[in-house]
């Protein structure tokens, strides 16, 4: 495995690993790890570092919705242009062009349901290319970013075994 891939595998699990620990885990030296991270960032492989948050456990937390958007394109307007306009809204947390019955899957983060529905009806739906939106509010998150949201330690192994 090349150095960048090894570093990426560590960061994908825990973006807070410090360079020395990444070096220890990969067997690379710290300078090589730093260089790999610089290269991954410069090449837009790594776009940022975020916490995986269970917003349901935060007082005055946020609400998340998955919004299906259908669009109609014309000669001057392609998916890229529409995506660019949708992505500019800060409420849009993630935006994907998808195969299937609709065109874009958008993850929207808002303060509450009203906030999200206002955003969709007042900002997204009126866009000339948008022909239909369907909003799914997320009721409960069980797993995100590869991490299962559940309580604490369920290690029931014997503390010492042969």
């Amino acid at each position, binding site marked *: 495995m090349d150095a960048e891939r090894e570093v990426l595998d560590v960061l994908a699990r825990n973006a807070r690993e410090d360079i020395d620990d990444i070096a*220890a885990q990969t067997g690379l030296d710290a300078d090589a790890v730093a260089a790999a991270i610089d290269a991954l960032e410069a090449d837009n492989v790594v776009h940022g570092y975020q916490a995986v948050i269970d917003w349901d456990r935060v007082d005055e937390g946020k609400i998340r919705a998955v919004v299906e958007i259908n669009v109609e394109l014309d000669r001057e307007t392609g998916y890229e242009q529409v995506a660019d306009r949708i992505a500019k809204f800060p409420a849009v947390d993630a935006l994907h062009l998808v195969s299937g019955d609709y065109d874009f899957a958008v993850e929207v983060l808002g303060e509450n349901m009203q906030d999200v529905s206002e955003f969709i009806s007042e900002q997204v739906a009126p866009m000339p290319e948008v022909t239909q939106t369907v909003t799914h509010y997320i009721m409960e998150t069980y797993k995100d970013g590869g991490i299962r949201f559940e309580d604490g330690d369920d290690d029931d*192994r014997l*503390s*010492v075994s042969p």
Partner: protein
Amino acid sequence: MRLSDRARTLPESGIRKFFELAEARDDVISLGVGEPDFSAPWAARTAAIDSLERGKTSYTANRGMAALRERIAAHHERYDQSYEPESEILATTGASEAVDLAFRALVDPGDTVAVHEPTYISYGPGIELAGGEQLTVPTRAEDDFALTRESLEAAGAAEADLLVLCYPNNPTGATMTDEQLAEVAAFCRDEDLRVVADEIYAALTYGTDHASIATQPGMRERTVVVNGFSKAYAMTGLRLGYALGPAEAIDAMNRIHQYTMLSAPTTPQYAAIEALDRCDEEVTEMVEEYNRRRRLVVSRFNEMGLDTFEPGGAFYAFPECGGDDEAFAEALLEDQGVAVVPGSVFGAGGEGHLRVSYATSMRELKEATDRIAAFVEGR
């Protein structure tokens, strides 16, 4: 009730004491665990559940389900091992049963069985229960705990009838290369030793592929290979192992097995079929994670001045703590709440070392090694 002499004289495992000490506290980070911290792959677990829902709760064939044995045979081609599913493979209740059956099938009362140490703690008692006598062959830190012809000769293993070989090794994490095994194989052929090769950690090697003594010239016919699903597929509690060997040995083991166990448990056989069919990728991910932990742990021990050779397999590091390893482990548990197992528990050559299991989360490993570093600093 009056107990048999055999039962009365069987010693308590040295692990037991540390288990009790560690269990007595609730703030312990344990690096003393000899099993994966992962659960069995979900696909394997659902296959087990599905089999129960379909009412698959009867015995299987004594040797295990044919579909399982066929897959085990195919799986072992990756180690250049080739065994006939019908006659040369026996599914057992954990690899432990396979080891026990091998001893009972291959050891006559008074036979001598050479065992390299430090090693897994069950071989000695198993040999004793089969009526044999253990001959200890110490392996050395300067050989990175690989078994050498020189060690075998020095210990008088030429007189032995059987050799137990456990690589990748618990507790050292040592592995052996084909070249090193060739030397041991030549000794076995020259001195007419048969071999029980416990290869339960074969899937957990780092950087090199597992090498098996059974693939050395002239060794297949004198070797019983033991393996299972516990370590690679994180299925310890499901208790499913197996033995691979020449038909006459497997047949003899099966004859004992049919009276003492009848068949390996049915539910895990379904899980194992699914594991072999579909879970390679999960095993690879587990191995990659163990490898990252292994490197971190080894580098941290070396940084804190406890010399640690680079273990090539299993999920153990074997740092040198110098002097009385038992006192070190007890004081470490007392002062810092970190449980490790003293190397001397695993026999000759283990003294002055600690078995450190890295089958625990990265976060706990960092916390535990920080605490050990503080302990070492304070001594």
